């Protein structure tokens, strides 16, 4: 095999635009490529995706590989692993970076095993080791209780990155890059699965991942009614409602509001955590918040270790007064 060289980004798009994670991917990948003194490529896989090439170049890619085929219209493991595997064998990149998304977490490990290399998923820090020129991939382990740095000797080194963990690339439309089209070479029978339906949960108001203020409740809220109060406060602050896992499991709120390692990863300016203890699994989802406020009756609750401001009291008495004061301040 040829010498492995360069950094390759798997670019994700939705609704004819590159996704937010793709900008973050390009941001961190450009740095790694520069540190190595090697090129940065981006791969666009799908149907009718060629038009996104200029946008990816503006974000820092020197070369774009477009794999456009009707059979690639929807993400299907067999199809995407096949085309990415073939491309990786042809181009022999040193590193392949994907987002830790529904697609990335499925594609990355299977691709790695097909290429007989290893993947490291959900990284929050990536660096190049100056001596070995290998990628140092850091990720949370043990539900966020610890962090670990891994490296791989086989190539390509494949990693996914956690949303909001890396700064997004700024587009520069004066940048130049080359576009290469690659044949998918797929036959329908290569794809063993069939996508029957895609169901998107409609969200009222601001999406949790995009909100600059999030009001989040835990087991201590005790009921769906309690969450109504939090929702009103969230509305007042033009923010979104979130929750720890127990309220989702108990059906007090939609499971899509879960924040944490198995829920949403968010990084709002302000995170108001009410009656939740701040388990590692929960903090994994919100520790990127710029400011955390905790309201909890237990002064020993772990959430106070992550918070900037705290109130030790019963939320049932704190919240109404807090909401009233907030209303007065924001309307005044």
């Amino acid at each position, binding site marked *: 095999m040829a010498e492995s060289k360069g950094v390759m980004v798997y670019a994700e798009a939705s609704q004819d635009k590159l996704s937010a994670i793709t900008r973050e991917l390009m941001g961190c990948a450009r740095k790694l490529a520069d540190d190595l003194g090697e090129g940065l490529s981006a791969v666009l896989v799908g149907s009718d995706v060629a038009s996104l090439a200029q946008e990816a170049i503006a974000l820092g890619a020197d070369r774009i590989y477009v794999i456009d085929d009707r059979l690639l219209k929807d993400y299907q*493991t067999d199809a995407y692993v096949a085309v990415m595997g073939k491309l990786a064998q042809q181009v022999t990149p040193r590193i392949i970076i994907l987002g830790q998304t*529904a697609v990335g*977490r*499925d594609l990355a*490990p*299977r691709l790695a*095993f097909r290429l007989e290399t*290893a993947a*490291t*998923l*959900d990284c929050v820090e990536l660096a190049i080791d100056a001596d070995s020129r290998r990628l140092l991939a850091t*990720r949370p*382990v*043990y*539900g966020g*209780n*610890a*962090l*670990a*740095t*891994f*490296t*791989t*000797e086989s190539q390509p080194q494949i990693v996914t990155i956690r949303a909001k963990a890396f700064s997004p690339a700024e587009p520069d439309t004066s940048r130049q890059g080359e576009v290469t089209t690659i044949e998918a070479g797929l036959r329908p029978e290569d794809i*063993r*699965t*069939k*996508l*029957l*339906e*895609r*169901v998107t*949960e409609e969200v009222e108001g601001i999406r949790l991942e995009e909100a600059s203020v999030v009001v989040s409740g835990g087991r201590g809220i005790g009921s769906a009614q309690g969450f109504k109060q939090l929702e009103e406060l969230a509305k007042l602050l033009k923010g979104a409602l979130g929750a720890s896992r127990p309220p989702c*499991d108990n059906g007090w709120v939609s499971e899509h509001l879960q924040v944490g*390692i*198995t829920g949403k990863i968010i990084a709002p300016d*302000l995170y108001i955590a009410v009656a939740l203890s701040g388990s*590692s*699994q929960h903090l994994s989802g919100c520790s990127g918040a710029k*400011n955390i*406020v905790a309201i909890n009756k237990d002064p020993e609750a*772990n959430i106070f*270790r*992550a*918070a*900037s*401001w*705290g*109130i030790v*009291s019963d939320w049932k*008495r*704190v*919240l*109404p*007064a*807090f909401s009233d*004061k*907030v209303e007065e*301040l*924001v309307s005044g």
Partner: protein
Amino acid sequence: MNMIVCLKQVIDPETPPASFKIDPQSNKIVPPPGIAPVLDPYSEYALEAALRIKDAKGGKITALSLGSDLVREVVKKPLAMGADELVLLEDEAFTEGDSWSTAYALAMAIKKLGDYDLIFCGRQAADWDAGQVGSAIAELLGLPSVTVAQKIDISDGQARVERVTDDGYEVIEVPLPALITVSNELGEVRYPNIRGIMAARKKEPIIWRPADIGVDASELGAAGRRTRLLKLWLPVREGKCQMIEGDSPEEQAVNLALKLREAKLL
């Protein structure tokens, strides 16, 4: 319907953060004293998914765990919950592996078991959160896979799987045999009942060593790793929390609002 479920024994993931310690010299977790290991919760969801199919359609479930010093009460729990057989890959050589060596050994054991329609894994194991073993087994055995499932229905030799996505779910049809990884969105996992616990007590696990699955020790555990752990550490939480005081909770609330206003967060 023959089903195989892979279940891992892990340090209790609900260990309070304050009791969670590491040994920086050896890059290892210090098992929290007095806290017993448990089955990886995601593995339990995988088992629950298989049990639901068995309840509806009948079938046989084989539980498969790899490790060393496997605590019998822990790894026998699947039997108590309703699995029919337990196979343990138990040997020093299996330990300290990464996703590669672990998946390789599990795949070879599954090959030896042979007759299967469905293989279930958790979406990730709650210790290292690697999230790879399921996909890896599928790739090694050449099976189609669907990951992060929340619901599975079987009919006409196909599985209809709801796969959790970033903003909802998709419904995927996959022919059997297939591998499915299961997520917590599946819903509650059953508790073993007394009858199950009694039955489990009487049943002995089948134990396989490396030679039993025809693999060389150099492919297993620490020796077979493809990823190297360089450093393990605890994140620093600053503990700079400013407590808001007041004569009553209501007054604390008002003071908090004023503080946030001052910080231009409101």
